């Protein structure tokens, strides 16, 4: 590695060689062994900026935020029941039974009150937004 490259790496990645590209570290170590005074000065200069950057603390996650985010996740619901009932042929039967119950509730009297279906979290939203959301198309493997 030439001295110019060593300086360029310090300029880009800072004074900690452990943060440099893996494939360059051995060559950098050889340069450091050959000229410890010069390389030490280069790294020390870069480290001053590293230290200053580290003084900028990131905002910390509060428990309230973490709870709010966790609460925004869909819960296991009927969609998952369908998944494990279907192989036994129970899914269709259950659906038919529910449909019959709904019809009965509507047509045959007030004693059979249809129970509102629990929200299937995000199902319609999945379909609508996945097609629209550019983020889902960033990597070809997602839809491959």
């Amino acid at each position, binding site marked *: 590695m030439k001295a110019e490259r060593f300086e360029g790496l310090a300029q880009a990645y800072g004074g900690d060689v452990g943060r440099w590209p893996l494939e360059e570290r051995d060559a950098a170590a050889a340069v450091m062994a050959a000229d410890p005074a010069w390389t030490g000065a280069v790294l020390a200069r870069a480290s001053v900026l590293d230290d200053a950057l580290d003084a*900028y603390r990131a905002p910390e996650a509060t428990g309230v935020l973490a709870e709010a985010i966790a609460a925004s996740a869909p819960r296991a619901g009927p969609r998952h029941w369908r998944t494990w009932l279907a192989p036994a042929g129970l899914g269709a039967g259950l659906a038919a039974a529910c449909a019959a119950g709904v019809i009965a509730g509507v047509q045959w009297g007030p004693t059979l009150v249809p129970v509102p279906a629990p929200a299937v979290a995000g199902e319609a939203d999945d379909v609508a937004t996945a097609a629209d959301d550019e983020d889902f198309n960033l990597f070809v493997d997602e839809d491959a």
Partner: protein
Amino acid sequence: MGDPDDELLARVAAGDPSAVRALVARKLPRLLALAGRMLGDAAAAEDVAQEAFLRVWRQAPKWRSGAARFDTWLHRVALNLCYDRLRKRREVAYAEPPDQPDEAPGPERGLEAEDTGRRVAAALAALPDRQREAVVLCHYQELGNIEAARLMGVSVEALESLLGRARRALRARLADMRA
């Protein structure tokens, strides 16, 4: 090597509340750090984090590990959300120029980390967006050069160029701190 988040994502997709909490605990701090430093605004960073997780919930059932790791995908989602906000901010600023942030050292400036942090935040905010992105990804998020370059859609050489220019500009702005 498999994606370390695969197993957790599968449990999230199955609606496991403990997996949801574990994923939030694992990803939220880095997501907030990324958005906070890209935007320089803690409240906006929280909005970005919440929006990013909504996309995670939608994506989890469809997630298949492949060329992209989940963490890389999540970084890209968060960065896109940050860029949306930066764009809107610029549109507002164009219509109504804001006051310039005060980044000059005060008369009683000491060596306190808090003061240094504020000055670095201002210097980082003054960088062009792509230079700031490079510094945030490589220095703060500690991504490797190949992953950061891929995430930014540039070559490793271009990433190094962005980093070099960013660090020169930061040094110039923080010169009186001997940075």
